[in-house]
């Protein structure tokens, strides 16, 4: 889908006929509807006189399927099939296109897209349905209650006509305040496992437009030479060797000291010219440690007094002193790059009114527009955002500083602000460019009584804080504890009688950000490894042992129990396996979703490990698109396994060692044979699914490999004693 073209066509069409029914909400959240001519109306759905229905998507799509999900909600209520609805990404408008869980911020993250939109988009679709029915009822002189829309046709009271015929009249009617929503038992599309994604066709024909595909008349491409070590700054540079190279347009130092911009006509020319640049750097404040040192420093921190306290149950130390047995482990998780398939890039175009348009696979338009408004010194309203398909993100496109948008803004300013500037990163830039999943060290002591029951849990964590120093600190940091560092430990659903948790912030100029499931992607590994070790010490089946700690009250525990049971049933937990095969189990509750997984692995005679199969059980509330849920679980497991098996960003005296996919190795097709996903039937409101499948994958694998003899607590596995096929 070419979003820009379709929007232009829409405006043209609207001007020609004036008859487009649009339904959205006012900034107060009240349903509103009317003609296209009402410039103030920013709809969720619009229907033109030809009957073309378009869902306007307030969330971007990085592959997680939000576009299909939002279109499903509208199509369900409107009474049309999923094939009959078009989609386009909404412009930036934090008053009406905000994420209802984020306040006045338009953005996607935290696996909230469907959860926050579920009622809103259904209501918009239902209001449009009721208005069209009312218009038809007027025309036919019958009661609207006798009519229904079936596959885009208004039928009832002996009449039948395409809904297109009533669009113009419907647009003149008052919007119903509280349109009746479809009874879940009558859902045709929501929860239907046979529906297909909306983005299949454009993505298998090369037609889908990503930010990287933007080419504007007169544009110049900008690439940036960034410091070789985090925290270094530019002293001076010499670009004379690039003079005269084809397409080369000049170079300029960023005012932040964060690099030197090189301009050229095309991407390749810009990459080539950048090679010729020499830069003198100031390393005074730079990170100069190597990875081993960084790891040792963090491990030393978890063996010292913590800076902050995340949980402090009274009597934990005494209970530990009385334990019959204590299991103690240290863990280390390296920095990780998100490595989305589409490297970071965006384009800024000057507009006639003195404002600009940002073309981006934009994850949080309000952050991007706000940051650019500051850089370009213009009101936020003058920064328009054109959202395109995003080639992945995993959180990288949503850093609180929106670093790459800011870089593009600076490059645009330095170029004079008169022509479009397209900022391109190379894969090497993307791998070395920071905003990594923070490295983390954990030390855990679990005390058991003589029956193998947990009496005390002492947990120490050292990691760089993601939220401190950002806009989000006010809500995400409590008593010095960054919630995203510890999540999954002090708030565990396991009924641990006594727990203490201390946290220390590791300080470094290495930039960090959330990566798919944020803190859970390391805390989950630790929790589920320790639970396995405790079960083993107790001599109890690891599934049974976990369930015994989830037997308490609460809906979340009940959902987690069901997910575990479903994963176990799907995997045939407890049934015999061939020689050399083993299973491991793990689960986690996060983003209001319960996911449990069973890994089955094998080891050949030479000691090489193959992942045979993953089986997952998930409770995501009502699965709006079960097939998309399944795909997210498969993809989340694969994404996690890639880094658990092989990845880590390492440093040599502060310089990032890895540069591209040859040394930051993604999962490959041969790495895993099958992933089976079972979804807990549920009528509860939908939660999220993009992130929750990530945390259990690593520990499920680790627990399976441990069953074959090797317990891994230092990651990645391939560098710590596990040879994969």
């Amino acid at each position, binding site marked *: 889908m070419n979003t820009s073209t379709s929007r232009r066509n829409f405006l043209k069409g609207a001007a020609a006929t004036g008859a487009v029914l649009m339904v959205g909400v006012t900034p107060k959240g009240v349903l509103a509807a009317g003609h296209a001519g009402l410039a103030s109306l920013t709809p969720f759905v619009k229907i033109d006189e030809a009957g073309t229905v378009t869902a306007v998507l307030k969330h971007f799509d990085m592959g997680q399927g939000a576009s299909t999900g939002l279109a499903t909600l509208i199509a369900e209520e409107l009474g049309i099939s999923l094939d009959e609805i078009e989609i386009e990404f909404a412009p930036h408008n934090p008053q009406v296109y905000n994420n209802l869980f984020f306040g006045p911020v338009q953005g996607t993250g935290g696996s909230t897209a469907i959860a926050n939109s579920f009622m809103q988009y259904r209501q918009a679709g239902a209001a449009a349905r009721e208005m069209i029915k009312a218009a038809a009822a007027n025309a036919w002189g019958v009661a609207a209650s006798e009519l229904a829309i079936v596959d885009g046709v208004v039928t009832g009271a002996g009449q039948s006509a395409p809904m297109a015929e009533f669009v113009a009249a419907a647009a003149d009617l008052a919007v119903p305040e509280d349109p009746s929503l479809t009874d879940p038992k009558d859902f045709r599309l929501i929860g239907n496992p046979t529906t297909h994604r909306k983005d299949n066709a454009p993505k298998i024909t090369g037609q889908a437009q990503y930010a990287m595909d933007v080419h504007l008349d007169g544009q110049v491409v900008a690439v940036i030479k960034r410091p070789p070590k985090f925290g270094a700054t530019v002293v001076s540079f010499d670009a004379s060797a690039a003079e005269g190279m084809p397409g080369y347009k000049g170079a300029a130092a960023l005012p932040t000291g964060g690099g030197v911009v090189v301009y050229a006509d095309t991407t390749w020319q810009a990459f080539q010219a950048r090679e010729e640049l020499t830069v003198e750097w100031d390393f005074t404040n730079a990170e100069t440690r190597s990875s081993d040192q960084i790891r040792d420093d963090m491990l030393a921190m978890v063996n010292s007094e913590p800076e902050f306290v995340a949980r402090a149950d009274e009597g934990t130390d005494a209970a530990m002193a009385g334990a019959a047995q204590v299991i103690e482990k240290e863990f280390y998780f390296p920095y990780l790059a998100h490595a989305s398939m589409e490297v970071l890039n965006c384009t800024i175009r000057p507009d006639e009114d003195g404002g600009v348009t940002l073309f981006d696979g934009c994850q949080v338009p309000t952050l991007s527009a706000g940051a650019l408004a500051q850089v370009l010194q213009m009101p936020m309203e003058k920064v328009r955002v054109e959202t395109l398909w995003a080639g992945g993100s995993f959180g990288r496109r949503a850093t609180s500083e929106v670093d790459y948008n800011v870089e593009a803004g600076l490059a645009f300013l330095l170029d004079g602000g008169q022509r479009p500037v397209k900022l391109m990163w190379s894969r090497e830039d993307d791998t070395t460019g920071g905003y990594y999943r923070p490295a983390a060290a954990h030390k855990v002591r679990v005390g058991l009584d003589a029956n193998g029951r947990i009496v005390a849990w002492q947990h120490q964590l050292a990691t760089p804080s993601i939220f401190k120093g950002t806009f989000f600190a006010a809500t995400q940091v409590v008593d010095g504890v960054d919630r995203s560092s510890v999540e999954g430990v002090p708030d565990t659903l396991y009924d641990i009688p006594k727990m203490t948790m201390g946290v220390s912030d590791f300080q470094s100029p290495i930039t960090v950000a959330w990566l798919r499931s944020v803190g859970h992607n390391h805390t989950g590994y630790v929790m589920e490894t320790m639970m396995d070790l405790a079960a083993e010490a107790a001599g109890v089946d690891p599934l049974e042992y976990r369930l015994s700690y989830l037997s308490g009250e609460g809906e979340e525990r009940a959902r987690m129990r069901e997910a575990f049971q479903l994963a176990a049933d799907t995997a045939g937990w407890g049934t015999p396996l061939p020689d050399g095969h083993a299973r491991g189990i793990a689960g986690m509750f996060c983003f209001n979703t319960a996911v449990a997984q069973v890994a089955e692995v094998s080891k050949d005679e030479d000691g090489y490990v193959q992942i045979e199969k993953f089986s997952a059980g998930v409770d995501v509330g009502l699965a709006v698109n079960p097939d998309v849920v399944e795909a997210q679980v498969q993809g989340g497991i694969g994404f996690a396994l890639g880094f658990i098996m092989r990845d880590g960003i390492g440093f040599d005296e502060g310089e990032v060692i890895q540069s591209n996919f040859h040394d930051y190795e993604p999962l490959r*097709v041969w790495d895993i044979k099958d992933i089976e996903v079972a979804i807990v039937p549920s009528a509860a409101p939908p939660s999220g699914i993009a992130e929750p499948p990530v945390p259990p994958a690593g520990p499920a694998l680790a627990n399976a490999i441990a069953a074959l003899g090797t317990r891994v607590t230092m990651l990645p596995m391939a560098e710590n004693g596990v040879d994969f096929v």
Partner: protein
Amino acid sequence: MATTITVNQTERSLISSEETPLLWVLRDELKLTGTKYGCGVAQCGACTVMLDGQPVRSCQVAIGDIAGSDVTTIEAVSGVEADAVRQAWVEMDVVQCGFCQSGQVVQAIGLLELNPEPTDGDIDTYMGGNVCRCATYVRVRKAIHRAAEILAA
């Protein structure tokens, strides 16, 4: 002297210099942006196109070396294998972010042209160079088997 190649059945006289990789000529000069940049060093397969009927990594091919050749990109790749692959990809809803999928589709077409009934092992070997950061691999595998089934029918 300008390099001339045939792209999607049209002869194109190129202004890019001879050492420019085909990938960047397709994307930046010819605006055929369906072919994607993922790594630039033959490690990901996002840039895969058909060169004289064979899938190649367009980031590794300098246009000066392929003067007179025939290039087909994702926008135009066609034939029974292409139809079967696309049908299977839709049936299995393979795509997620989609950024690797141009390359996956072209490579899968190449596989089926060579071997209409690939085993899992064949798929591992032939598709192993195509990275998908969204990890759609399980469905890529199933869709290739499904495409083989469609071809056999």
